[in-house]
């Protein structure tokens, strides 16, 4: 038994974090291409069914762009006798039922928020679809008993372990105890490894949509082997982003920035080639850390790096999407912290943020929270509002402390 499980596709959405040179190819690097490759893969490997974990299209009322791409893929699959089984996510509550009505062979499970079970050759697929854009009650509250001999694969879209979520909050414990052989989830774009005894977790987006979608992307091949479900990610995504950290030492010259980025990128591409996971385009988010006096010099080269560190390797376009310099002066933090001046005070704050004294860290974060919250509390940031948790504040403070130390020590030179 072979299935191909596809996570959030968001058809009809173009990736935007591309350099100007690749902007024209946005559609080729977007979900349309990823979906087309999924279909090709399914046809090539003659899977029994393709299961879709929701958010197939990006806009819930996109009845043309995403709809059309989805329709043509489904038609190709059904024409080859491959069943297509889907649950609706919060993004496609309107479009998916309509598509299911329009295309024979596409099965929408759990329509209207009712659990539904579909029997395939060797397994059953149990699914639940979003009845509306927001669902605050957990669908697991109405999860039926999974009795029977046949293994059951759960197909669901929701927010895992976030009880206050408006997108179908799911409790991983309930899932684990449900008796299903696997739970293939949609909603969060970062995929889970799905390598446990019972694979439970997010399939992830099928291709990177934002620069924050780091790591490998692609559909998952699900096989039943000795009564156990095994999931393997298929790196078919045309676009991927990678985080790359460069540790700068006091001896490193700032003029080496570009060569080092290129070397690191080449190593990363080589690793992907070896793993057979080379996308058509690979964006790098580079963070430069370490101890150096050249923080300012490195920052001054960032724009230039963005323009020059673009190359092609193995048919993949590699580009630098962002460079963040987070270095600090090459001085012992303990020594700095003993000073009585502002440098010493900030060094002590940095120690508090990165040291083992969690109380000191928490106190500092609490003290800073109003200032940070106030900075982004404005209406303008509502569309990108994110929970300002302790880690986020701590991370900002630590980075800012390193930068402040760098600037202050720069005054002594």
């Amino acid at each position, binding site marked *: 038994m072979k299935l191909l499980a596809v996570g959030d596709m968001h058809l009809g959405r173009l990736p935007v974090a591309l350099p100007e040179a690749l902007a024209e190819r946005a559609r080729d690097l977007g979900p349309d291409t990823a979906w087309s490759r999924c279909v090709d893969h399914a046809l090539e490997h003659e899977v029994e069914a393709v299961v879709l974990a929701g958010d197939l299209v990006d*806009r819930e009322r996109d009845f043309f762009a995403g709809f059309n791409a989805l329709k043509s893929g489904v038609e190709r699959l059904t024409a080859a006798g491959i069943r297509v089984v889907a649950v609706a996510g919060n993004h496609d509550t309107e479009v998916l039922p309509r598509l299911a009505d329009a295309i024979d062979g596409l099965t929408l499970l759990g329509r209207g928020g009712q659990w539904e079970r579909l029997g395939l050759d060797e397994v059953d697929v149990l699914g639940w679809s979003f009845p509306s854009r927001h669902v605050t009650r957990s669908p697991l509250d109405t999860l039926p008993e999974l009795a029977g001999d046949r293994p059951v694969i759960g197909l669901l879209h929701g927010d895992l372990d976030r009880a206050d979520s408006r997108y179908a909050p799911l409790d991983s414990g309930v899932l684990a105890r449900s008796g299903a052989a696997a739970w293939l989830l949609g909603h969060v774009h970062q995929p889970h490894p799905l390598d446990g005894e019972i694979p439970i977790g997010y399939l992830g987006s099928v291709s990177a949509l934002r620069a924050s979608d780091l790591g490998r992307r692609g559909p998952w091949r699900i096989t039943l082997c000795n009564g156990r479900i095994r999931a393997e990610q298929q790196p078919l995504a045309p676009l991927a982003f990678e985080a790359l950290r460069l540790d700068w030492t006091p001896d490193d010259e700032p003029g080496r920035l570009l060569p080092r980025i290129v070397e690191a990128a080449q190593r990363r591409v080589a690793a992907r080639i070896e793993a057979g996971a080379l996308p058509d385009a690979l964006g790098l988010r580079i963070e430069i850390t370490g101890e150096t006096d050249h923080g300012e010099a490195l920052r001054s080269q960032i724009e230039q790096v963005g323009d020059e560190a673009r190359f092609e390797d193995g048919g993949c376009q590699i580009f630098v999407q962002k460079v963040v310099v987070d270095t600090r002066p090459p001085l012992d933090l303990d020594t700095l912290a003993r000073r009585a001046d502002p440098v010493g005070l900030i060094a002590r704050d940095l120690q508090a943020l990165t040291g083992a004294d969690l109380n000191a860290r928490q106190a500092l974060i609490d003290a800073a929270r109003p200032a940070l919250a106030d900075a982004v*509390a404005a209406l303008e940031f509502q569309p990108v509002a994110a929970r300002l948790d302790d880690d986020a504040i701590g991370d900002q403070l630590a980075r800012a402390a390193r930068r402040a130390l760098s600037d202050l020590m720069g005054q002594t030179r």
Partner: protein
Amino acid sequence: MKLHRLTIRRLPGIDRELSVEPATDRPTVITGPNASGKTSLVRALHALLRPAGAPEFVDLDARFEHDGAHWDGRALGSARHWQRNGEEHAPPDWPDADQLDAFLIRADDLLDVGATETGIAEALRRLLAGGFDLDRVRTTDAFRLAPRPQKLHREHEQRLRQLDDLERRQAELADEVERLDELRAELEAAREAESRRRAIERAVKAVEHRQTLATVCRRLDELGSGFGQLDGKEGERLAEIEDELDERARRERTQQRALQDARDRIEATGIADLDAAEAARQGLVDDLRRWQALDAKRRELEQQRERADEHRREAARRGGARGGHVIPVPDLEAVDALDDAAARLEAARTELDRLNREQSAVAELDDPGAELDAARDAGRALRDWLSARPPSAIAWTLNGIALVVLLASGLPWTGAVPAEFVLPLPTGWLALRPLLLGAAAAPLALLIAGGLRARRSGAARRRFEALGVDGPEHWEPVSVARRAGEIDHHSAELVLRRRQWERGLERAGEIEQAERARGEAHAAWQRACTALGLDPDQTDSSAAHRYRLRELHDLQRAEQRAGDARAALDTLAEQATALQRRIADRLTVLSGDEPAPDSAEALADRLRLLESRINEAREARSGIEVARSRLQQLAEDRDALHDRRERLYTNAGLGRGDDALFLDPGSTADDAATDRRSLLHQRLRLLPEWQSLEAERRRLGRAVAEDEEALRNASDLRRLVDQNDLDGLREQLGAVAESAERRDELVREIERVTAERRRALDERELEALNADRERLRDQLADAREARLFAAAGGFLVERAQSRHVADHQPELLKRAGAWFGRFTHAGWALEFDGKNFAARELASGEQRSLAQLSTATRIQLLLALRLAWMDEIGRDRATPPIVLDEVLATSDPARYQAVVEAGAELVRAGRQLIYLSAQPADVEAWTRFHAEPEPRVIELAPTRDDTGFRFTPDRPLPCPDTALAPAEWALEAGVPPLDPFAPAERVALFHLAPDRLADLNALRARRIVTLGQFEQAETLDALPLGDDAADRFEARIRAVRAWLPLWQRGHARPVTAEVIHRSEAVSEKFINEVVDLDTELQGHGPALIEALREGRVKGFRTAKIDDLEAYLDAAGCLAAERPVSDAERIHTLTRTGPLTDPDAERLDAWLRAGVASVG
């Protein structure tokens, strides 16, 4: 060091000895009117302590006390002497001159920041900055809080709206796409209905065609046949032909008249035979020319004869004829010969006269030849002398000496010269002797040449002197050369004279020759006179006489020419007579009996008349020929037009044979033509109708045929058509019309939906718009990230700075702050931002710069700084007394008291204080306000008490009964509501401690009513509370400081008229309307902006609304974030300090109640 005594004996501006002994254990107030010497005391101290820059001469001394020792200082002139306990000693270590100013304080010094305060600020800056420029770090791009991305947000919101709109449209479109099959089925039905409708309509038309055709045919029958040959233009063509016939007839009549007229004109000329008349006229013309030639000849001859007669009369007159006497006429050749002889004689006489005159001019000259030769010889001798000029005496001498020396050197070698003449030369020179002898040849040669030239010049001189000519002045080259020039010039003059003398000799011969020529001419004259019979002796050879002879000859010639002219005239008269006769004959032929002309002019006139008649006859004959030709042509045209008219009638079917059909019996041919014309016109009037009917008949015939073809398959309809059942057909038409009419609409609808679907699929507009929104969202996320980072950086730097300042606030600043707090009764706190000093009013929480402070408060602040500074600089040095020079003149009573008390504090701290004033009230004030012991008062001179002292201390604050309910207590105490947007320092203590009314009263007794005043008093250690109570207040104050920003979130700061004014976004034109609108909206910023965007204030531009919105946003008047929940606020309060949850809840409730009381 304390000043015990100061004695001034001499100081500029002081004219008497002045001595003061200020107190050392209490303040000293020195009073006196202006110029009494108060300020001189200060100058004297300055001169003693720091002599540099002191006045020219001083004489003063002073005694100080320090550490139990007496210090006596003496200033005399520029010398300074110091004794310690009566022994000479080095001067104490006084502060530097500029630092001394800190101790000697004048009122003017405290009006603004001066050098002392700048020094204080600089010292503080160094201490507080910790060596770093934190502001620079805080204002880097990374840490500077970027403005809120309002524009980006608006664009994002706009994209969202666009996306929603597009999605809505696409959803509708999707619905419509789903209905496409239904629409297509509807369309098919509509098309069938349309087809049936068209068939029925055709059938209806077929019935109508048949009925119309029948009607047309009936009318055609009524009109009859024969219209087919007419084209409708016949009437016009007939009229055209008849017009042309009329025109031809008119022209014939005209030509007939012209013919007769020409004939009449010929007859009138009287010329029957035009050719003969023209030939006769030509002969007369020739005769006329001849006659005119004879007349001209005759006139010429008559003129010649007249001139000859006149000439003859003149010649006779000149020839002396008088009274008809004719003198004999001389021979003309003889007269000519006489003229020639007379002319030659006259020329010979003239030449002879000329030669005689020239000869007489040179008759006196002698021959200068001898003199000329002598001059020439003298010149040559002088030139020879000059060319052989002898050497000068010097040359002679030098050459001689050279010769002698050389010979003396060389000749001994030859042995020919005695030894005494030989020069004693060194042996080595012997070898040179041949050379020396050789060299002697040169001077020798020169001497010989000189001798030869002297001989030649001597010869020349002798030759000259032998000539007897005057010699040169000196015989030296210049004089000789000048004399030679003079002799040459004289020679030239002699040559000229010689030539003149030789010309005189030649002219004597010429005169002889001229005299012979005159004799010959005279002889010829005599012969000519004789030939004419004249006596030469009596005859004048002049020209007049000869002229008269010539005139006589001319007279003879004139007589001859006059006779010739008369003979020619006679011949001419005969020729003219013959010509006249011939002309008369010719005219008789042409003009009959008219008399012949008597002159050529008359004949010419007759000829002009004749030519006119001949021309007239010729033109008339030509007119006759033209008229005849035209009449012929007109006749031919008329015949052709008759033929055309006949053909027209025939073509219209109205031939002559048919006339009988139309004509009445007995009518004429013209009548017949007229009737035929009427008949034609009648037919032509009916022709359009016939043509129209005929065309309609053909069209209907075709339509009927087409109808039958179209309805071939609709037998039911054909049947109805055959039955002419229009009602039946219309009934069926109504049944299908409604369905058929939907067809176009359905086609359009299907095409629209299909096109929009295709466009949606092709353009993927939603995808592009969504991508754009994603891009904007990413930018917003970046902006948020940047603000978070900046806020984190700002927080850390601010925190580091405040902690560092708190930890390291310099003692100086603390002391200054303490002094300021004391001066202002804890009403103000001193602040220093690293650059500038400022004061914060603790009641209001407002910070004010020095410039914004009242004069009194500013003096107090600067005085506090000075006092602190004195401590700083006097820490390890000797310090003078503190001298205040009327610095409190502008202070109010309360502050005056505070300063006085501060002075007492200084004294208690071991300082010596001297206050100088011209105001008697100051003495009273110091006496009143200063605690025991009373200040020492020193009057330098009596002062006028004209100002009085009217200080009234501030009234104490009311302290209501603690038994009252808190709300009542607050009412009595006048506690203001809590303004959550004001600085925390302004929060009344009541709002955070309504449960501690007794403590509040204790604080109020010290005028401590606000949070800021409490903190300041705490800093000054001036709280009237126990430690527990103070700690409790302190904890609540920390909580209030955390509570206020939490409360502000989600609560827009009210928009007031003042805020609107400050925004500068609203001009005066709109300010009233905008403020009114704001009042109506109760100061709600977002509502105000929205209302403005809706156009509630007409004419207020969008750009200005944007400006106002930006300002309100920056001012916190547009807070739109979610309010912090009560639980979250309480949670935060518990984190700030040792507040328990119930305490935090209570405090939150009190504060909210305080805010609510704002109204």
